[in-house]
């Protein structure tokens, strides 16, 4: 396991995580919130209370996994885990955008109504994310071989 000595100050690293997390959270809110333009209001409808599959959550998790895997297998993955750029994009933005807890909450709510559907959605979500990660891995290998 490679060990890295952080070259950047604690404040810079904390700001990178907080800034990225703030941006990722804002993106998640914008994508998942239900906006009522006529009323000029917006509300974040948590998936766990919606009792149905939120395709938007599935999409942001799957796309987020693809981008994070792509970044970590590239030059960013060779840098220190405490490098501000890596912290901002992977730990912050993508970490704030994607969420495991909301998916699990959604599955928990659906489980109470239809266990088969909950298992199906869980398998679909994890399968799609693993597929996205694998796709990024394979494409990255091809790019590396080609260059």
């Amino acid at each position: 396991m490679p060990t890295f000595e952080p070259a950047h100050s604690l404040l810079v690293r904390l700001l990178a995580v907080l800034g990225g997390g703030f941006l990722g959270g804002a993106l998640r809110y914008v994508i998942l919130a239900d906006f009522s333009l006529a009323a000029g209001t917006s509300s974040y409808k948590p998936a766990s209370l919606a009792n149905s599959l939120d395709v938007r959550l599935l999409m942001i998790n799957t796309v987020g996994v693809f981008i994070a895997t792509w970044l970590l297998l590239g030059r960013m993955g060779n840098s220190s885990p405490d490098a501000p750029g890596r912290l901002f994009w992977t730990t912050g933005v993508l970490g704030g955008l994607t969420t495991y807890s909301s998916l699990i909450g959604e599955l928990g709510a659906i489980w109470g109504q239809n266990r088969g559907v909950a298992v199906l959605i869980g398998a679909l979500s994890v399968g799609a994310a693993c597929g996205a990660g694998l796709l990024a891995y394979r494409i990255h290998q091809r790019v590396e071989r080609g260059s």
Partner: protein
Amino acid sequence: MLAFSAFCALGCLVRYAAEVFAGRAIRVQRLWATLAVNALGSMTVGLASSHLTNDPTLILAFCGGMTSFSAAIAAPAHAWRDGSRRSAMVVLITTPLLCISAYALGATL
């Protein structure tokens, strides 16, 4: 939206603190810390789902920042490439199982 984003950022900070703690204090790979915070966040959502009657938006924001689907897959992929294939497979397989168990535990507490 500002409060949501701020709570999400705090959740990310907790995840990063756990990863740093795992790497430096107990000397394990960071992906194990990701696994632990994903389980903890799922348990918190489970607790909120069964005990909280108020609007859970900010809890979901915080737990959403603390847990990360992208790290749960990308970190094992990175570890796999670096040769830690056993750890990568274990984390990849146990994360959904552990998170579901943690949610169920939180909901029944």
